[in-house]
C-alpha cells in the first residue's frame, strides 16, 4: 500500500466513523442479525401488549403492560408511575415481608378481587418499618449490564475503603447468594430473572419461570378471582420479551460542545466517577452485538451508603441507606431523578446525594455556577 492510498484508507475510516448512525433511545443494538432483530420486534409487541383479567392480568398489579410504564421517550424508557415497596429491617437483617405481601405492594386490583375482598390495592404490610417509592427506570443497555462479569464487579468493590477515598462499594446478593446487579438495590442477579419476576410482580402475569401468583397481603387468592390458567404467558412470549430488553442499546450520548466537555472533565475531577464508572465491558457472548463490548454505563453496579436522608427499604444485604450506583444511561430521557423521583432537576439530585457521595456532592456545590451548569450539560447528554 502506498503512502497516499494509506491516507485515503485512514480518511475513509474517519469518514465512516463520523457518519456512524447515532443510536437513539429505544433502538436495538447495532450489529444484531436479522433473526435477532425479528425477536427484538416480536418481543417489543409482547412488551407493549395490554393485559386484561381475561388474559391473565392481576389479580394484583401495578400496570397493565410493560410499555405502560416504560414508555418515555420510547418503549423501554421511563414513565411517570411510582410504585411502593415495603420491607422490615431488624437487628441488621432484612425481611422482605413475603409473608405479608412484600416487597412489591401492588397498587391496583382486578374487579374480581375488588368484589371478593373490597380492596383497591394490596394492603400495606403491618410489620414494615421501611417504605419506598420507586420510579420507572429506563431499561436501555440492560443486556450489556447483564454480561458484565461478576469478577469485574468484585474488582471494583472496596468494602474496607482501602484507598481511603470515603467510597466503599460492595455487591449485593440475591436470595440464593449470587451477586446482584439489577434493581435500585442490586438485588437481582440476571436480566432474565428480573424480567420474569417483573411480569408477576408488576402485572400479575405468571410465566414458566415464576408460575405462581403473588399473594394478597400474605393471604391466598380467593377462589374464583383468577380463573386464567397458569402460566399466563408461555416460554416463547417470555423469551422474546427478554430478548427485546436484552437487545435494547445504550443510546449514543449527544455530541458535547466545549462546555459539555468541561462538564465531563469536572464530573471526573470532583469524584463522581468514583462510583459512576464511565464505562463497563461485557464478557464473552455468543451474541456478537453483546460480545466483549464497552459501553457508557456510569455505574459500578455496587451498593453504596447514600446517607439516612435517602434511606428507605432493605433488600438482601442492602440496608435501608444502601443503593446501587444508578446507571446514567439514557439520563436525558429522565424527568424525575433519584430512585423515588424526589429530585426535579439534575442539580437537585446531586445535592441530595449523601453518605459516601457527600464528598463529591460538596465539591459539586463548591463549583461556580458556570461549572455546575457544565456538569449538568454533560449529564444531560447521556
Amino acid at each position: 500500500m502506498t503512502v497516499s492510498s494509506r491516507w485515503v484508507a485512514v480518511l475513509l475510516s474517519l469518514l465512516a466513523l463520523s457518519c456512524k448512525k447515532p443510536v437513539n433511545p429505544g433502538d436495538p443494538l447495532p450489529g444484531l442479525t436479522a433473526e435477532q432483530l425479528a425477536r427484538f420486534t416480536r418481543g417489543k409487541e409482547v412488551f407493549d401488549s395490554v393485559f386484561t383479567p381475561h388474559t391473565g392480568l392481576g389479580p394484583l398489579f401495578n400496570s397493565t403492560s410493560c410499555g405502560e410504564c416504560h414508555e418515555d421517550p420510547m418503549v423501554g424508557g421511563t414513565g411517570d408511575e411510582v410504585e411502593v415497596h415495603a420491607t422490615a429491617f431488624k437487628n441488621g437483617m432484612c425481611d422482605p415481608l413475603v409473608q405479608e405481601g412484600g416487597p412489591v405492594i401492588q397498587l391496583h386490583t382486578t374487579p374480581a378481587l375488588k368484589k371478593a375482598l373490597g380492596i383497591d390495592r394490596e394492603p400495606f404490610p403491618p410489620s414494615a418499618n421501611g417504605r419506598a417509592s420507586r420510579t420507572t427506570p429506563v431499561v436501555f443497555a440492560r443486556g450489556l449490564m447483564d454480561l458484565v462479569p461478576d469478577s469485574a464487579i468484585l474488582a471494583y468493590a472496596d468494602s474496607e475503603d482501602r484507598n481511603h477515598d470515603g467510597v466503599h462499594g460492595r455487591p449485593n446478593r440475591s436470595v440464593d447468594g449470587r451477586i446482584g446487579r439489577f434493581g435500585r438495590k442490586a438485588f437481582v442477579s440476571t436480566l432474565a430473572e428480573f424480567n420474569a419476576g417483573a411480569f408477576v410482580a408488576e402485572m400479575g402475569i405468571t410465566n414458566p419461570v415464576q408460575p405462581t401468583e403473588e399473594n394478597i397481603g400474605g393471604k391466598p387468592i380467593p377462589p374464583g378471582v383468577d380463573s386464567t390458567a397458569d402460566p399466563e404467558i408461555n416460554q416463547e412470549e417470555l423469551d422474546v420479551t427478554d430478548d427485546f430488553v436484552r437487545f435494547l442499546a445504550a443510546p449514543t450520548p449527544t455530541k458535547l460542545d466545549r462546555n459539555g466537555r468541561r462538564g465531563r472533565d469536572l464530573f471526573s475531577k470532583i469524584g463522581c466517577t468514583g462510583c459512576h464508572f464511565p464505562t463497563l465491558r461485557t464478557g464473552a457472548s455468543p451474541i456478537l452485538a453483546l460480545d466483549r463490548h464497552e459501553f457508557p454505563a456510569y455505574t459500578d453496579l455496587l451498593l453504596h451508603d447514600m446517607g439516612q436522608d435517602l434511606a428507605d427499604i432493605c433488600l438482601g444485604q442492602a440496608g435501608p441507606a444502601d443503593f446501587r450506583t444508578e446507571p446514567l444511561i439514557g439520563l436525558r430521557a429522565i424527568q424525575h431523578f433519584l430512585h423515588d423521583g424526589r429530585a426535579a432537576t439534575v442539580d437537585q439530585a446531586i445535592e441530595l446525594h449523601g453518605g459516601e457521595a457527600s464528598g463529591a456532592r460538596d465539591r459539586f456545590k463548591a463549583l461556580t455556577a458556570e461549572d455546575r451548569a457544565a456538569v449538568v450539560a454533560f449529564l444531560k447528554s447521556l
Partner: protein
Amino acid sequence: MLRTILLIPFLMSTPIRHRLQAPPPPPPTQPATSYTYVGTVHAVNAQTGTLDLITGVGMSLRLVHMTAGPVVRPSSPASGLRFADLKPGDAVRAECRRTSAPPGLVVNRIEKIEAPAR
C-alpha cells in the same frame, strides 16, 4: 438460564433403576418426587423442625415452609447439615419431598451454598 431454572422448584424424576426394580410391584401410590429449593433462610426452628425459606424470581419472592426429615433433625446421627446449624440469612439448597399427610414439604438434605461467580 441454568441459574434461573435453579430458582424454581423443579421435578427430579425418580431414578429409572428404582422404577425398574424387581417385583413385587408396589401398590398404586404416587411415585416419590423430590424438589430442590434454593434461597435464603427466613426462619428456622430446630426444636419444632420447621424452616421458612425465601425463594423467588427477581422481585417476585415466595416463602416456602418446610419441615425437617429424619436426617436434618438435631438428633440425627448422620453427618451433614441440620436445622440446628442454620440461621436466618443463610443461603441454602434444600432437597425436599412432598407429603400428602400432612400436606407439605419435608427436607431430606440441606446444604449452605457458595454461589458461583459468572
